[in-house]
Each structure stands twice: as structure tokens, then as C-alpha cells.
């Protein structure tokens, strides 16, 4: 046993030192789930690949999967820093406080946190305007639904998710005034069985288009079996439901990751930045649209995506009332970023409560 231990220590030192010589920079990633979830986490791994391709041996990337949202994340990030990481990307909302805590302890290390709202001198946040994509798929949903019931499987009641529901609803309602949304909150990002149960429930209640803001591909599989439609979440999921898959909102992290790592190497990286990019910047990509969508609707959806990208259309443009009927945006007024980032209310027409 002792010999083994000594060997492993020698080996690991060798590895660490050889890497230290080989690369200028070490970048660490922590993921909330498995890398091959074909969803949220998978797209971050695509971003890691983009870094590797852009910098080759100059940058070493390391990652840790299945890092829970909580104190455990602190331990993992601390370990990464101690093993020489110069920059850390934390890729889930709930890694927020751990990032801030660890960043305090290591002021020289650069931290990037996805979808959060807390920054520091060495912490920047980045997020995508997913609601722009949700507007496009909401439009498609409004057009293809026959039952006029659209199901929505939501994870946690955080602004990002609420924003997505509102955006999709407004677009669907504009496309089809009779449309009705059924929202189920399942309080997890990743639980295939629970996601499948929620989707089945929505289908049993008559929904024929299912949207999701949870990470696994279970909903797509269920939709395929039941003969209804669904959308890929974060990645293209058509392999799970060739007939059910309408299109996907794909997260494009690669360009941002490469840019930020480059800045870190050049010394131009800054903390306290809050990046919030959308379709126009390539951080949100509308996937390939299925033949099951009528050609005219495909064109409308593409036009909508293009107009959002160019800035001609903002998915939240008044007149919009809040759920209780009180006015939010006047005619022609566009939502300000502060309200969007903290959004905690439904727009008028959506039934049910947002769990607080």
C-alpha cells in the first residue's frame, strides 16, 4: 500500500509539473451535471473544446462534472485553484455564492459565473438571452399546436426561467390568440424520471407541444412516444425524437470562452463585467427546424429570429400587462435589462403562481 501511495504521489507531481511547464494558463470548469447530458452541460464541453482548439498547448483545460450547487462547489473550486488553475468558469446558477466566496480567498484568480447576478473585482458573469430563442420557439408552438394547449416543464423559479416562460407565451399568444400555457415546476435541473412524469402529465392534460427548461432529453423521448412535439434544450436533441423534435435553442458558449481566455492571457480581462448576449452575438442559436413545421411557419420563425438578432424586434415590447392586470410596458416600450434580469412575475394570460 505504502509503495502504491508513494508511486501515485510521484506520478501526480510529475504530471502536474509537466503540465505547468507546457501550458501558460490553466482554466477550470465546474458543471452541475454530467458532460454528456446532451443538454446544458454538453454545450459547455463544446465551449471547452473551442478553447482547446483555439489555444492548443498554451492553455490547459480541466473540468469537474456533477458539482452540486452549494458548499461542495466551494471545495471543488478551491481544489482547482490549489492545483494551479488561473481562471475558473462556474457554469450553473447555484454556483453563485460559492464562486463569490472562493473568489474572495484568491484575488489573483479570475472567475466567470454563468447566469448569476453577483460580481466582484475578479468575478464576471455571463449569460445568454435565451428568451430571444424562446420567443422564436414560442411562435412555432403557437402555430403548430392543434389543441391550443402548450405544456412547459420548468426547473426552478429563478428570473431566467420565468423570463423564458413569459417570452415564449407572448410569442405563442401573438401567433395564436387561443393558446393556453400549462406550467409545471419540478425543482430540479436534471432528473429524467421526474421530467418524463411531468411531460406525460402535460400530454395527458391535452398539451400537444411541450417546452422544457430542464436539462435532460427525457421529455423529447416521451414526446416522441406520445406523438406530440417538443424542443431541444441547450443542444439539438433530434436523435431522441426524430418526429417530435421541432427545433432547438442551442447555447453557443465557444466564442465567449475563447474571447475571455484570450483577454486573461493578454492581461485585459476585467472583473465586474456582466455579459448578456443573444441571437445576434451567436450565444443563442436556433437549431435546424424540422420538416414537420409548415414551410410558411419556418420562414416566419426565421424572420423573427433575424429581426431579434438585428435588434428590430424585442421579444418584450409593450403593451404588456403583468399577470394581475397591472400595466408593465406601455405601447411600444421595450423592457429594460434590470427588470428582465430580476423578472419574478408572469405576464397577463398565464395561469398559476410562480413559486416563491
Amino acid at each position, binding site marked *: 500500500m505504502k509503495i502504491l501511495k508513494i508511486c501515485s504521489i510521484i506520478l501526480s507531481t510529475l504530471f502536474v509539473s509537466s503540465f505547468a511547464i507546457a501550458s501558460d494558463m490553466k482554466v477550470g470548469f465546474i458543471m452541475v451535471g454530467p458532460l454528456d447530458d446532451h443538454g446544458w452541460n454538453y454545450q459547455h464541453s463544446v465551449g471547452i473544446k473551442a478553447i482547446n482548439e483555439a489555444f492548443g498547448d498554451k492553455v490547459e483545460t480541466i473540468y469537474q462534472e456533477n458539482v452540486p450547487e452549494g458548499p461542495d462547489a466551494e471545495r471543488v473550486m478551491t481544489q482547482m485553484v490549489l492545483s494551479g488553475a488561473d481562471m475558473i468558469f462556474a457554469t450553473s446558477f447555484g454556483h453563485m455564492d460559492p464562486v463569490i466566496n472562493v473568489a474572495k480567498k484568491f484575488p489573483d484568480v479570475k472567475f466567470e459565473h454563468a447566469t448569476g447576478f453577483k460580481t466582484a473585482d475578479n468575478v464576471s458573469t455571463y449569460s445568454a438571452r435565451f428568451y430571444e430563442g424562446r420567443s422564436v420557439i414560442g411562435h412555432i408552438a403557437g402555430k403548430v399546436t392543434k389543441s391550443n394547449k402548450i405544456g412547459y416543464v420548468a426547473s426552478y423559479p429563478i428570473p431566467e426561467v420565468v423570463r423564458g416562460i413569459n417570452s415564449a407565451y407572448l410569442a405563442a399568444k401573438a401567433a395564436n390568440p387561443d393558446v393556453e400555457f400549462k406550467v409545471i415546476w*419540478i425543482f430540479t435541473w436534471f432528473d429524467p424520471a421526474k421530467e*418524463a412524469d411531468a411531460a406525460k402529465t402535460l400530454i395527458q*392534460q391535452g*398539451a400537444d407541444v411541450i417546452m422544457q427548461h430542464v436539462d435532460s432529453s427525457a421529455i423529447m423521448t416521451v414526446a416522441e412516444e406520445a406523438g406530440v412535439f417538443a424542443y431541444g434544450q441547450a443542444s439539438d436533441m433530434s436523435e431522441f425524437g426524430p418526429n417530435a423534435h421541432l427545433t432547438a435553442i442551442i447555447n453557443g458558449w465557444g466564442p465567449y470562452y475563447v474571447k475571455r481566455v484570450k483577454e486573461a492571457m493578454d492581461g485585459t480581462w476585467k472583473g465586474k463585467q456582466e455579459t448578456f448576449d443573444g441571437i445576434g452575438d451567436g450565444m443563442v442559436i436556433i437549431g435546424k427546424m424540422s420538416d414537420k413545421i409548415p414551410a410558411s411557419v419556418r420562414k416566419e420563425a426565421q424572420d423573427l429570429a433575424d429581426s431579434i438578432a438585428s435588434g428590430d424586434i424585442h421579444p418584450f415590447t409593450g403593451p404588456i400587462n403583468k399577470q394581475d392586470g397591472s400595466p408593465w410596458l406601455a405601447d411600444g416600450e421595450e423592457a429594460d435589462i434590470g427588470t428582465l434580469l430580476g423578472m419574478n412575475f408572469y405576464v397577463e394570460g398565464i395561469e398559476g403562481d410562480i413559486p416563491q
Partner: protein
Amino acid sequence: MDFSDINFSLLIASLIVAATPILLAALGELVAEKSGVLNLGVEGMMIFGAISGFIITIETKNPWLGFLCSSIGGILLASIFAVVTQIFRANQVASGLALTLFGLGFSALLGQSYTGLKPVSFPDMHIPILADIPVIGIILFQHDFIVYFSIFAVFLVYYLFRKSHFGLIIKAVGENHDSAHALGYNVILIRFFTILLGGALAGLGGGYLSLVRVPQWTEGMTAGAGWIALALVVFASWQPFRLLIGAYIFGGITLLQLNLQALGLEINVALLSMSPYLVTIGVLVFMSARRNKNSLEAPKSLGKTFFGL
């Protein structure tokens, strides 16, 4: 709000499906615990069964073979536990936890090239005549084989412990392994058997998850079902029929709260989400409260290592 959106016979039918994986796993654990073995590796055995069954179903296109292999997968993992705890006399709690970690990791490794594939669907068995009865037909007689098997297994376990000689021996081993040993029973052999049976049922439950309920392979897809199964055994106070009720209540409330949410009901959703756990525990505790003390207690030798005399 329109309650007519909820189809109650479909709801009950799907709660039975939703509860089947935990029912099977919990039933296996119940038998193991009755013999005095606390195996915390249920989650690991389930997920290993899920991937074993999934791989075989994809490769052979035969879900029956898949289910067989998910059981065998569960047995394989359980046999590690059995060897470690019964022959090498390791601590059961630690070994069980290790088994869960190992099962989660090893299944992720095996499953790497199996994400994104779809297994051959497992046919429902519509029981002739009975399946056509309105309402009850949909609820009870249009399920697949594994659902019928899980209910049958509950009866079997009940019979085992209530009416059979072998069941008495298992209980004797679980209550006091030294006495059972003194009476000439082979404690280790009997525990080997119950551990492997537990593994087979947990594996089958896992296979049901990846082959029917979801149906696909995703890393970590059991997402805590094994732990719920473990808790159910305790709350059902080691009684098979209570276990059945507990599992169905758990599945039922889970689905009911999803249905209520989809209706847009003005109820606190966080409360709804924890209701399956609360209600299940509440009901089982209430049922236990009326029994006499002896029938509630855990097997006396539960979790203890048998050293022989």
C-alpha cells in the same frame, strides 16, 4: 380552472407505472433487511441494472432479455456487497455506500456510448376481457409484464414471511443471528441469498426506469430513487403490503401534484412538490401508530456483522 383536464383513470394508471421502480427496489431491500442485512447500495444496484438492461436491449433488440440482464446486473453488484460484508465481514453501512458510488460511476462509464439511443419498446399486455372494462380496465389491466410482476412479487413476499417455513428461517436470522446459527441454520448462506434477491429486484427496478418509464439512458438517471426505496422500507415497517401502499401513495401524490400544477392551481408549488414525501411518511406513520410495538420494530440483527460462534 378546469378539473376535467385531469383524466383520473389515466392518472392512476400512470402512478402505478411511476411507482414500480421504487416498489421493486424497496421490496428487495425489505427481504434483505428481514434477514438482518442493511444494504445502502440500492441506488447503485438500481442504476447498474438500468444500464445493464439498456445495453442488452439495444444490442439484442429484446427487452425481455434486457430485463433479465438488468436483474443479473443487480445481482452482480449485490454479490460484491455479499462477499465483502458476509465473508470479509466489512461494515455494512460503509460497504453499501461504496456500492452506490461504485454503481453510479461504473454505470456512467459503461453507458458512455449508449446515450441518445432508444430501446425497443416493451409491449403492454392487455389482459383479455378485463382490459375492456371501462375505467378499471385502463387502471389495472393494460400494463406491461413488469408491473404485474411487481404486484405479484408483493404477494409472494407476503406469503414468504407469513406462511412459509423458509420465511421463518430468514426472519430468525434477521432477529438473532447467533440463535439461528445455534439452531443449525447457515446464516451467511441465507444472507447471501437475500442480498442477491435484493440485488435482482433493485436491478429490475432500475431496468424498468431505463427501458419503460423514461425510456432512455442518461447518466445518474435514478436520481435518488434508491434512497426513497430505502426510506419506504422503514416507514412501511417491513410489511410488504404497506410497502405497496407507500410506493403507490408516493407515485400518486407525485403525479397528482404535477397535474394540479398543470391546471394552474393557486397552491404554493413548493408545498405541492414536497407533498409526496410528507404524505407518504404521514400515512405510513399513521398506519404504524395503531399496531403493537413488536410488529413495528426493525429486525434485531439489522446491520450487525455475524462472526459465527
